[in-house]
């Protein structure tokens, strides 16, 4: 445990703890873990708990003297503290149950979290804070495009020669296209590729199989920021599998560590050195 594991509170001698799950889930908690957090907040804190935008629970007003007890209790429930300072923050993922998922991101986020955060003594130090967000579809509810590293899953949709039966499920409420990219012309489905965000939902709705999902791909974005100086991320590369996206993130973080000055976010580094620093052929 170090100073980065706790967040200073307004009251002297009291800190806020950001609590995440080491597993089995990273964007989820189990019922038992929720109960444990409630107990700890009541016993050691003020009974209040905040849910942070990066999918951790923050327990405020914890006495510094009680920290060892609290961390032991949390560890007993598979929870650990951290997620502050210059290091990879909690990897966020969208809901595992969302029907729009092209590829569920929960497990990938968990794997990344384990790689980056789990080893207490060797938490990966980085030049600046690094947010990694994994979105299962183009609606990007975990804000992949204003994160330092973001992944968005896409699906490639094709119109097959199977005849459209004009059931119009793909265009009307509640299951129809969210961005109105589909029109039903004479006996055929037409997709406006400009509007389409490639969520692939229509391929699941289409019963005759006129719309099919051909393949999945993963867009990797880098250099986004929220906060003091917000910045939109650049599309760095598109890879065909989630495994490759994870490997790419690994090498990006290595490159970031090697090239960035202390305190520089990935977006700052891109501003200074361009997109060449990851040192890979595109």
């Amino acid at each position, binding site marked *: 445990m170090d100073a980065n594991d706790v967040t200073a509170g307004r009251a002297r001698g009291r800190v806020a703890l950001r609590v995440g799950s080491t597993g089995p889930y990273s964007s989820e908690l189990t*019922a038992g873990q929720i109960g444990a957090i409630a107990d700890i907040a*009541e016993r050691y804190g003020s009974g209040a708990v905040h849910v942070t*935008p990066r999918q951790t629970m923050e327990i405020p007003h914890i006495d510094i003297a009680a920290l060892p007890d609290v961390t032991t209790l949390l560890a007993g429930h598979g929870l650990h503290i951290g997620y502050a300072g210059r290091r990879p923050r909690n990897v966020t993922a969208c809901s595992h*149950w969302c029907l729009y998922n092209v590829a569920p991101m929960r497990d990938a986020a968990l794997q990344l979290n384990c790689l980056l955060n789990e080893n207490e003594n060797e938490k990966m130090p980085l030049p600046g804070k690094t947010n990694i967000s994994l979105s299962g579809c183009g609606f990007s509810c975990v804000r992949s495009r204003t994160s330092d590293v973001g992944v968005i899953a896409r699906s490639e949709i094709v119109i097959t020669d199977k005849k459209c039966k004009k059931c119009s499920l793909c265009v009307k*409420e509640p299951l129809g296209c969210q961005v109105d990219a589909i029109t039903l012309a004479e006996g055929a489905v037409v997709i406006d590729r400009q509007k389409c965000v490639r969520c692939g939902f229509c391929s699941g*709705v289409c019963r005759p199989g006129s719309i099919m999902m051909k393949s999945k791909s993963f867009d990797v974005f880098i250099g986004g920021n929220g906060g*003091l100086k*917000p910045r939109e991320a650049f599309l760095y590369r598109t890879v065909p599998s989630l495994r490759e996206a994870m490997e790419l993130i690994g090498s990006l973080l290595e490159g970031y560590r090697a090239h960035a000055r202390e305190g520089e976010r990935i977006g700052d580094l891109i501003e200074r050195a361009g997109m060449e620093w990851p040192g890979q052929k595109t």
Partner: protein
Amino acid sequence: MEESREKFTLETPQVGIIRGVAARDIEVVGGKSVNLRASARPYRNVYTAAQLRAIKSVVEKYGSGKVHLTPRHNLEIPEVGQKNIDRALKELYGAGLFPGGAGSSVRNIFTCPDWCSKAVRPVQEIGTMVSRNFGDMDMPNKVTISFAGCSNACSRPQNSDIGIIAVGKVAASEEGCPEDCASCLSVCRFGAIRKLDGRIMLNEKCVDCCKCAQACAHGGLGIAGTGFRVLIGGKEGTSVRFGVKYADFVEDDFEILEIVDRVLNCYREKARLRDGSTRKKERLAEVMGRLGIAAFM
């Protein structure tokens, strides 16, 4: 493919089948299960231990034993069976928790916590007021409102339809400060501070984030007054847009309520169907792209 088709039911959700809950509170009404989003609205964006226990009990009894943490401060309880939803909601209501945070409405008002040491001005009180007045109100499309207590903006106000950031006016004291201290210069990210003859000067690049005043240990810099900066028209998701400054320095909490009311009214009045769409209306950012920020004044 067969498998993915089975998870859909193709009937339209029946609005109002569940007492007191509109269909939009439910993510997707599936054949077997629905997604239920519990959130601590309208009470301060802070969960109490008792509320967490209520969620725990609902999750254990009716859900799948797991809870998803959403980026807008909701706890999402997945896989609650259709036949149990009434009972689950009753328990949640009893603990002061409400479903929602979905559909074309004002989503959960996000505020950062008051206990953060970086807060320039606490926002939970005003956030709760906005939540009470506008929470869950029907809108042409979804509207997100976020409050940030400092310019670090961890609640992402720049990417919200209405983003409100606490700022402060920094005042340098007449007395000057020690030669060897440069803590204010090193924390300023905007190059807005200069030191001349032991006196601190702020120039027009200052964005009122107050980081220098918070870093100053000598009393050379102080916060003379705090207020809110209001940004509108931000979004994130299919496309990214950052909010545009609507009001620079609002000191009074009630003026914030008036601004939110005015912006929402203008948005409701002026939003129309998206080009080429028969059912989806524009987001606030799209209305602003079409008519400019003057349409909300």
